[in-house]
């Protein structure tokens, strides 16, 4: 879900996603060097992201990932589900007395 969300802002490459993940979560989510790409591969097989290799001015080309329409739908679904989960947990933790 987090990966899909980061990609919903636009096409990104692996290292970019990993470092954004780390900085936005203030270091709480450190993605291992070998864990990110296999997950992308799984998303790719689901048809949720689409990879493209793009050359850079110098050196090794980069693999960029783009969210597909199907991926966007999956993201919306996952976010809705997550919100309702958090909401449920929050209600239990904070109250319980209202009903």
């Amino acid at each position, binding site marked *: 879900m987090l990966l899909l969300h980061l990609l919903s802002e636009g096409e990104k490459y692996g290292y970019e996603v990993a470092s954004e993940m780390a900085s936005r979560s203030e270091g709480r989510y450190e993605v291992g060097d070998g864990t990110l790409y296999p997950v992308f591969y*799984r998303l790719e097989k689901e048809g949720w992201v689409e990879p493209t290799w793009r050359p850079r001015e110098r050196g090794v080309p980069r693999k960029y990932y783009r969210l597909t329409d199907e991926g966007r739908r999956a993201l919306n679904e996952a976010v809705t589900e997550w919100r309702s989960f958090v909401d449920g947990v929050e209600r239990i933790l904070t109250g319980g007395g209202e009903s």
Partner: protein
Amino acid sequence: MTTETLRLPQAAEDYLARVMKELPRPLPERGRIEDELRSHLADRLEAAMGGTPEQALSRMAPPEEVARDYLAEISFEDAPLGKRVGAFLIDALAGTVVLTPIWIFLWLSFLPQLDLQPPLSYGWVLLPLLFITKMAAAVAILSVVYFPIVEAIWGRTLGKWLLGIYVTREDGRAAGWVPAILRRLSFILEIFWIDAVFALFTKRRQRAFDLVARTVVVRER
């Protein structure tokens, strides 16, 4: 763009090679993984601005761990027993054929000295018997000089290659020398038949010495 610009600093290429060494050679994802990792390493080095490649690499996960993470997402299908038996028979037969000139040579050079004259009428009985003993001898020799070596280097033997199966560690990493030798010990100790029966009952169709070596035989995709 020349190929020179596509290479990373030597330290990073070495790191990449260490990851690739852990991935079985018959794995179809190797190319993709190598490209992704090279690109990732390039980004890592770029982000490390100013530092040496070695410093940037020291913050990378150990190569075995990266390989394991990649392999964890790849599904392996255990090889069916039929293919394994078939591969073994192919290897045994091929070994027998290759070694036959040596037997004939030895036979011809020692027979006159032994002064042995087998009656020709026994030929039909003797020949198949001879063939079986030669095959057993071939397997004994192959167990030491062939199976462990080719499985350590390529992950498979001729028979396995023809039937589309190969050996990996239980976690999917390439077998390597120690496991490749370990899993052949039952051949050398001549307890192969007992060892092989285990494959009928174990979950991942492992021989007893596969369990010891922590190896499995998987199907190529």
